[in-house]
């Protein structure tokens, strides 16, 4: 692991996301957005790492992210997603949802649309904890237990699902275009809230979640309400989990304990591991029944994750002793993450 440099930015980063690159070009991502939290004046900012395909460039300080522009944000930025190349959606601790537009030519940001106080209690604002979008549709969830659907170009809300739960909904993701999956809690022996969820990019029934105890769970949503496999990942809350979008054998998690883990599962085994048996004491694996005569390639390796045969490797990606890593995003070979130590780390040579 080569040394990763920290850029100190004077704000605690709650979310960071790469700007999507078009699939046709093989460019590495070069712009990312961050949102801050716990400040009196929170901000969203756009940064550039100046990655224009020059592979011979020296790693290190040349790759320092440069601030392009920033804009004030009312309340903590609790979630942030790119709607398209120029617009981001943010959710706030004041219960508002805002669309910001980044004007590339003038390097300014303007508020494109805003829905204030969509998440609220009768007499108070409720923080809006998660957002997912598939342009032009936006879905948000909040501490008030509501799920709200918007369209980017329309004023009002399209649909509100009230009282989806009387607990806080922490995270949301798309399962299929018409279904969303929200994340509250699950049971193994103890009741524990889940904080983050991500869907496998190719196999849509596979979902990974991370929870308050730092356990990484992989689920098959077609089959029941217990997770397929449980892995002890972190010693504190896991804040984000991401499958690599183009190389889903790689998974990344980050946590309150200050670590960012890179999980890599390999597919080079003839025999499915649930037939190999064996247990590893750092991991409990309960595999469901695979379809009889099932083709190995259809069964995702995540569902049969068993690290005892060296099929699952985990590496730390940050120097130790950082404060909580609140957010990460990975695209191509680039990984960006933000911490409570007010630092951003960018790694441009992630081995995927």
């Amino acid at each position: 692991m080569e040394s990763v440099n920290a850029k100190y930015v004077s704000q605690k980063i709650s979310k960071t996301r790469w700007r999507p690159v078009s699939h046709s070009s093989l460019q590495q991502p070069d712009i990312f957005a961050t949102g801050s939290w716990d400040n009196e004046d929170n901000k969203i900012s756009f940064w550039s790492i100046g990655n224009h395909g020059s592979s011979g460039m020296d790693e290190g300080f040349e790759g320092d992210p440069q601030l392009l522009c920033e804009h004030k944000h009312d309340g903590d930025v609790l979630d942030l997603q790119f709607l398209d190349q120029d617009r981001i959606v943010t959710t706030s601790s004041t219960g508002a949802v805002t669309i910001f537009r980044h004007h590339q030519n003038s390097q300014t940001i303007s508020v494109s649309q805003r829905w204030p106080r969509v998440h609220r209690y009768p007499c108070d604002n409720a923080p809006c904890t998660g957002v997912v979008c598939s342009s032009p549709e936006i879905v948000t969830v909040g501490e008030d237990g509501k799920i709200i659907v918007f369209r980017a170009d329309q004023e009002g809300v399209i649909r509100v699902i009230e009282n989806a739960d009387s607990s806080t909904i922490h995270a949301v993701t798309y399962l299929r275009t018409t279904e969303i999956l929200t994340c509250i809690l699950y049971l193994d022996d103890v009741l524990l809230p889940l904080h983050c969820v991500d869907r496998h990019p190719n196999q849509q029934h596979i979902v990974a979640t991370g929870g308050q105890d730092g356990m990484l769970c992989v689920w098959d949503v077609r089959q029941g309400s217990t997770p397929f496999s449980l892995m002890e990942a972190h010693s504190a809350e896991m804040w984000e989990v991401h499958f690599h979008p183009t190389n889903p054998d790689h998974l990344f998690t980050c946590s309150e304990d200050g670590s960012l883990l890179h999980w890599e599962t390999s597919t080079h085994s003839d025999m499915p591991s649930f037939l190999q048996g064996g247990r590893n004491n750092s991991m409990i694996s309960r595999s469901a029944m695979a379809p009889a005569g099932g083709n190995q390639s259809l069964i995702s390796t995540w569902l049969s994750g068993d690290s005892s045969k060296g099929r699952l490797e985990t590496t730390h990606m940050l120097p130790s002793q950082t404060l909580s890593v609140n957010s990460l995003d990975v695209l191509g070979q680039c990984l960006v993450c933000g911490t409570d130590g007010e630092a951003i780390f960018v790694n441009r040579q992630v081995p995927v």
Partner: protein
Amino acid sequence: MEELDVEPAITNIPAASDGKHLGFAWGPGDILAYETLYMAPGMCRHQHKPLSMFSHSCAKGSGCSFIHEVRKDEDIYSPILRKLFNESHHIFVGLQTIREDLPSKNKKTQFVSISKNYRSVIRACMEELQQVAASVLVLQVSILLAIELIWNLCEVLFIDAAPAGPLLLHLLDWVRLHKGDVDEKAREVLQSESPAEHHDYWDVVVSYVLQGRFEEARQMLVKQATLQPAARNMYKLMDTLLSKMPFYNPGGTQTLTEFDVKWRHWHEEVDRCLQDNSFASNQHLEIICKILVGDEDTLLEHKELLSTWYHFLVTRLLFCHPTVKPTELHYYAQSCMTMFLDLRSVPEPLDSILLAAFEFDIHQVIKDCSIALNNWWFVAHLTDLLDHCKLLQSHNLHFGSNLREFLLLEYASGLFTHHSLWQLAVDYFDNCPEFGHVYLELQIERVPLDTERKALKVLRICEQRQMSEQVRSICKIMAMRALRNNRLGSALSWSIRAKDAAFATLISERFLQDYCARGTFSDLDLIDNLGPAMLLSDRLTFLVKYREFHKLYEENRFSEAAKLLLSLITAKIAPRSFWMTLLTDALPLLEQKEVSHSAHCALHCGFGHDLCFSKHT
């Protein structure tokens, strides 16, 4: 009461009306002052520069009522200085993990490198501040410059603790680092058309000589030599003198005594040149020769080039006593300061701090810095580093903790008042063995909890340190908030996390009331999946089991349902208000054929039993 070290500074509150008597209240990092109606006789006002000031208007009663917030430490709110706090926190945490059992030589190198890390962080901040170039920041830049100067000197004298020989070399480096304008001037001169005729030329040459940078001085002199071929021999002589001056080589085989002999030899040679009037015809070279021989008057004539007494000190040592021992430093320092400064001018705080450092009085240095600076950052980190180097004697203060801990606690408490930097403070408290835990307990409850995510982070901090009181208190706050907003499931999860039985009971009651009011349960997912957590409180157990009963009934598993209901009735964990409900629930069961005979009887008995009970209550 102890004597005060300095007169307390007086702060003007411009917005306060004349003649008003102010009341005040202490806050964690500031003072709130307000106007009162009391009229004190003979109040006078001193005119002093105010520190930082904010005014908030408050309720408008009779007369103007303002609350003024007077804050001492503005630094933590500066966005650029925040990086200083974050980066130094990282270094601090790393420093605490250095293992005690390493051999002291390795530790010293590590400590020196950590000290350099701290200094580079200060420099980075300084550079960034300079780039911003706002007038307000000029003061901050100069404070950072002074801080780095002091830290560097402390590193040379205390942490690196160089002996005689290398000591002078380190001090030379120190002076060179903090006198950047020489290079600027030199660049200007060299870039001009004819450098040797530039009006600053000789200033540059002399500055180089004063800093012991003979290579550069010689290169400059060559330019002048080419212009004056007639004086070629003189320039050659000077060049020889400059090139032959011995510098102690710490890595070499030469001992200090040998070096001293060589140096004296060279010194005599220079003196001879002076006596011979070899440079009499060229006043500049004559001056340089006098400097080389260490003539104090000549040195003092160049006060503007030296600009500070400590530069004068190092230069004097270079040309008079290059083998100076650390213990001798303070004699020279005191005399140099006296010689350099006007008798009338009052020594600035920086001067007395540096003097204290030369006297190896660490405590005085720390004390003076604490008074002069408005933020504990510098003294806290420096003292911590010095403590790790085992340089501080245990100096017991009134509060029972030692100096290091006291300063760290003060610094961290200041951080805690910041809406964002409080997270850094936690690590500092962790490393204060005596009082850190208590301070943390008191402070962590004051962090405002706006969102669940923040509450979770604070909880994690408390749980990791076994602060169960605070855990319970935070969970209760969050649960009450959820309850107020009718988020029963959320409230229940919070009370389960706190293992708060009383609260869980309260919430279960609300659930049951909800059920009575609406006929259905509101949070089935949560209740169905509680698992062993349901044993937290009787009422909660009842709630879960009651829900289970309903589930069994809906699934038409009547015998099991009946058994469960029976156990619920007999276990007597149902709230009194619920007994009628339970009994009415039992009625349809009695009609079911699948209910076993024994269960039937038992239900009848239970029925009767409770009917009797209910008659008497």
